[in-house]
């Protein structure tokens, strides 16, 4: 603040509070809807204040048979699938990216640049532009309706590889020379020096990739047909379809709340890492 203008500060705070309210409104309505009985949620106008059935709805949603009319597995099962998928994608992307960045930065070998560009190309080929043929490959490999199919095809990552490459390039050359004089081979250097030095970058990347994996939609939609393998994002869509016939908004909104809880909690709890990850992966 350069000059002291109380009315301007007040106005700024009011505008920000209004902005926060607008952004938070959908979540509030979701929370309210998740805390009322099904019957109350069928009369317009819907309530704006929370009701007393939150825990009851929570139990029904998590362990009940889901929504009547929607062929979905219990929500806990789908949350578990989402968790496995998110963790698998995050860990897989980090693991294969960090070792390829290590190879590309610290070794000089034939076809090095060819590999680099091959990885770069993945940046230009999101699932959306190669839907059918990728589905066919996964289907031919027998990976439909499996955790492998949900994770492995998504774990190639140009951005993660670039980020680690950037991190390694900022580590002074003398660190490698010193390690060589100390007698450390490549794998030992990677494990003892590089990995500990990239710790915060790994954590930041993990936060971003966890959210990315958790929120996947198109991919699980393509390759899961078995209701036991479906993720919570897919179930939301199925519930919305069922809601056309028998609206049970309290259960749907409770499911939505459960589905957004893990990534939102990660963002708020690890805000620093989240911001670091976001700004570093997008350059």
């Amino acid at each position, binding site marked *: 603040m350069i000059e002291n203008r109380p009315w301007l500060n007040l106005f700024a705070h009011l505008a920000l509070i209004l902005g926060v309210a607008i952004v938070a409104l959908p979540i509030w309505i979701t929370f309210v809807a998740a805390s009322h009985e099904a019957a109350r949620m069928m009369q317009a106008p819907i309530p704006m204040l929370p009701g007393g059935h939150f825990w009851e709805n929570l139990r029904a949603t998590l362990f009940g048979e889901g929504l009547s009319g929607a062929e979905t597995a219990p929500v806990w099962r789908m949350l578990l699938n989402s968790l496995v998928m998110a963790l698998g994608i995050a860990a897989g992307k980090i693991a294969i990216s960090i070792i390829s960045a290590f190879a590309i930065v610290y070794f000089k070998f034939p076809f090095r640049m060819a590999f680099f560009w091959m990885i770069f190309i993945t940046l230009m080929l999101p699932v959306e532009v190669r839907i059918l043929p990728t589905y066919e490959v996964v289907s031919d490999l027998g990976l439909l309706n499996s955790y492998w199919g949900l994770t492995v095809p998504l774990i190639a990552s140009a951005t993660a590889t670039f980020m680690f490459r950037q991190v390694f390039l900022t580590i*002074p050359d*003398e*660190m490698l020379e010193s390690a060589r*004089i100390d*007698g*450390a081979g490549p794998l030992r250097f990677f494990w*003892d020096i590089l990995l500990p030095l990239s710790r915060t970058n790994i954590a930041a990347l993990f936060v971003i990739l966890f959210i990315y994996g958790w929120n996947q939609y198109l991919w699980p939609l393509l390759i899961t047909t078995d209701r036991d393998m479906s993720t919570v994002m897919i179930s939301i869509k199925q519930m919305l379809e069922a809601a056309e016939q028998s609206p049970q908004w309290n259960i749907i909104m409770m499911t939505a709340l459960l589905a957004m809880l893990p990534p939102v909690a990660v963002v708020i709890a690890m805000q620093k890492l989240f911001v670091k990850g976001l700004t570093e992966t997008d350059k």
Partner: protein
Amino acid sequence: MAGIKLENLIKSYGDTRILHGIDADIADGEMIVVVGPSGCGKSTLLRMVAGLEAVTAGRILIGERVVNDLEPSQRDIAMVFQNYALYPHMTVRQNMAYGLKIRGMSRAEIARRVDEAADILELRPYLDRKPRQLSGGQRQRVAMGRAIVRHPQVFLFDEPLSNLDAKLRVQMRLEIRKLQRRLGVTSIYVTHDQVEAMTLGDRLMVLNKGVVEQFGSPIELYERPASVFVAGFIGSPAMNFLPVRVEGDAAILPNGARLPAPARAAGEATLGARPEHLTPDEAGPVAVEVEVLEQLGAATLVHGRLEGTQHEMTVQLDGVRAPEAGRIMRFAPGQLHLFDAASGKRLAD
């Protein structure tokens, strides 16, 4: 313990030759300082001895062993880097122990060696700290400690003091010298600082554009520089150079003054006179028009031009003097050096 031998050592990157055949015989326990301006190839030379750069041609021997194709870790050397290259995520103790641990040394022996090094370097209180919690001088000492614990045959120093402030640099310079004497380990020390080179080295190797200009003791280099380059590089303030014409026993300065020629020559040559070897003398042949004075307390530096010419000259006078600007001062020359005008080589006395 072992000496080091360099035989016609050559380094090229593609078509660019960085080192043009370096020969050196370094005795066991000797401390050699390789000195030269940046880009002269001195760091490359050191890194070749360390095994961090491949040898294009020639041989490196440590003791009786040709080490050209050995990995750095197999050469029995230790190196101190300019930026110390301490592992930032390890404590001082872990930093020092890392190399020993990789070699599979027993825990007890590692602990004994680390403690021993910590005592020598007075690092005991800092053993469990991380590098970032240490001052510059302490980090420098940890880098030294990491070298000492290995009990290597050779120490290699790559400008280890250039990241320190001036005062600490002088102090650490003395410590390194004492330590090297005490441990008696053959050492190669690279620097661009000629004062550091003069004070540390048993012998100095002056490198210029990948060629050894001169290799000898500090006093030899000071008193009998082999070339204009060495003469200008060693000594502070730098030597004065004047173009002269030699006729018989006399060297004739550009303003016509005659000095006794310090060496036999004929025709054009370069005359060198150190600022501290010119003494005020009312009857002296060298006349300088005073322009600027620098008062250093113990000495006074007089900057000016050779009378009647544009040739700049510097003279160092003892104590506090205050000649006025614009005045002409006359000096008698003490020790003089004569170099070939074309090649810059020293002409025989």
